[in-house]
């Protein structure tokens, strides 16, 4: 992954120097362990700012919607590239505006998982050769990267960018022996009471900060349904009914569009695993329509079109 940094810098510098793009969107080093900050550069000499490592979990496609620049370079891993495809299909950006610098991804580190394991304040996290070393003031622990990845990365089947103009490395082998919907199946198997309790506890800490919605590249409505006043659809307090309405309805708005990038969970300040909801809807789309979001620029999304042999048991 570290070798990618050099290639990204070199590519960005070349694209800017040759005026092929007006800006490049990527990451620069953060001020905290396990954090990087999304940034943009306009001058070739700033390319040295760009970095890439396993802390680039934020989805950069979030910064593309409705951009007016004629040519934008963007660093995209597998899930990001699928969101870019979705943006193009939904007319939020044009393919011609983009120069996609594809990054074959081998998974992002889960900041929360590591913080849970560490005995004190984490001062430094170093990754090398598939091992992650976590240093606190009193000790240093090393973990296999595979054990401390984000949960969506652990079951990811689309690690390589599906669309790109440049690639910073050769494609990596896709994982085949993982079941992305194992956790969803576990919930599906619960009884009604168990499900009620599960979702009640899941959403109880929500403080209605909307970080999940804002981090999601799919949530680009000029006025979100929770902010509408004429008419006002729901309340703004922490009434459990309103909290559940927000999360469930947002999941439905992302149904069949979500690429499971994990940005929502990364952004949540109180650690809610709201991907449970979107994954269930993704699974339904896969089961019902054979559809996964953002894999190709040539097919319209499942909820956009109708095929004569779509299942329609609901019409009797």
């Amino acid at each position: 992954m570290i070798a990618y940094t050099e290639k990204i810098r070199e590519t960005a510098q070349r694209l800017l120097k040759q005026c092929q793009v007006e800006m490049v969107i990527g990451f620069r080093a953060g001020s905290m362990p396990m954090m990087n900050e999304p940034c943009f550069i306009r001058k070739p000499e700033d390319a040295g700012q760009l970095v890439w490592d396993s802390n680039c979990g934020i989805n950069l496609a979030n910064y593309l919607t409705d951009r007016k620049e004629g040519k934008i370079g963007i660093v995209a891993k597998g899930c990001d590239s699928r969101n870019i495809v979705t943006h193009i299909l939904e007319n939020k950006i044009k393919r011609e505006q983009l120069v996609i610098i594809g990054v074959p991804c081998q998974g992002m580190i889960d900041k929360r998982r590591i913080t849970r394991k560490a005995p004190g304040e984490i001062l430094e996290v170093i990754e090398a050769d598939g091992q992650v070393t976590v240093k606190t003031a009193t000790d240093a622990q090393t973990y296999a990267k595979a054990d401390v990845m984000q949960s969506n990365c652990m079951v990811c089947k689309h690690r390589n960018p599906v669309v790109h103009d440049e690639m910073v490395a050769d494609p990596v082998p896709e994982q085949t022996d993982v079941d992305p919907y194992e956790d969803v199946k576990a919930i599906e198997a619960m009884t009604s009471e168990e499900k009620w309790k599960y979702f009640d506890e899941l959403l109880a800490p929500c403080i209605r900060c909307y970080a999940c919605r804002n981090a999601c590249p799919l949530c680009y409505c000029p006025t979100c349904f929770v902010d509408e006043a004429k008419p006002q659809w729901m309340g703004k307090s922490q009434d459990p009914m309103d909290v559940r309405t927000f999360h469930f309805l947002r999941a439905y708005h992302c149904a069949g569009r979500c690429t499971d990038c994990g940005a929502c969970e990364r952004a949540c300040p109180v650690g809610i695993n709201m991907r449970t909801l979107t994954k269930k809807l993704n699974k339904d789309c896969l089961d019902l329509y054979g559809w996964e979001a953002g894999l190709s620029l040539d097919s319209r999304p499942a909820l956009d079109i109708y095929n004569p042999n779509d299942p329609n048991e609901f019409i009797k």
Partner: protein
Amino acid sequence: MKVIKIDKTEWTKGLDALRGDYRLFGPVKEKEYCNFKELAKGESPELDMPNTRLSPKSLVFPQSEAMMAYSLAPGEDQNICKEVPKDYSPRAILGIRPCDAKAMVLVHMNFDNGDYQDPYWLNLYNASTFVGQACDKPCGTCFCTSAGSGPYNEQGLDVLLSDQGDHYLAKVLTEKGQKLMAAAGWKSEADGQALAGKKTAAETAITSQVSTDRLKSLDTMELHGADFWEDISFSCINCGTCTFVCPTCWCFDIQDEVYGKRGVRTRNWDSCMFPIFSVHTTGHNPRGTKLQRLRQRFMHKLKYFVDKYDQGIMCVGCGRCVQQCPVNIDIRKVCETMNSLDSEKFCAVQQGK
């Protein structure tokens, strides 16, 4: 000022004695983080932790609070707002850090602004006795000493506890604090000599320093029109996390929630980061872009507040926003950038604005 020694073996007994007169609140571990909650019978506050995830501001300023209720059914009281019953019985806030206590002092200036007083916030604040805990092990993201506070700062506290291993040294700072100590039965006076040394050690342990010295003298319009805002605001996703975890952020929204024929007027936390925060009924939005909103937040905290109240910046250096911003926007970096604005370089451009 008295200093009282509390043996850790007497701690729980004292807490139980307090329950007769006070509702107890303190940090409670939930999953992997601590947050301030009411302590159940027999529950002790979690004092050995870096700091809570969400700030204790929710103890005097709940995320969602009913202000008044009304009936919409035809009758004598139709459409008339009436106050709702509240519990302002005495409460003891245990284990609050000096940074968060100072934050309450800053926020107090907003809710008691000379012309008006907010009864909801003030009644909860006045009913609370703050038993603070000094920080001997500050985090790498703490910069309280640069923000007018410190690990042993006493502003806003009624009692300051310092952990000495097998006992606490409690510095009693106010009459309210004295009353609480008496109610708990903690009365063995002690020599407070050790405190000075611990204070210095704790302050030295703070590694993060931020310069704020030029903020007051810099020109508001120059800062507002500076060219670094585009770079700083690019990554912001306007999620509101920073404002929600910040102990000095106080913006709120007032909403009428209706259930059939009766309703409640509630106040909820709001955030200047949200796009609809400043939108007018006509649709005009003075801060319609992300850059304008992000700039507003930092200008408010680091410039407008400084000018308006002359009490330093509207930040106590607790570091929560730095730890939790999903895109790692660091207020320390922004403050340094603002503080080091080169006025001379700016002058030539200003005329065009």
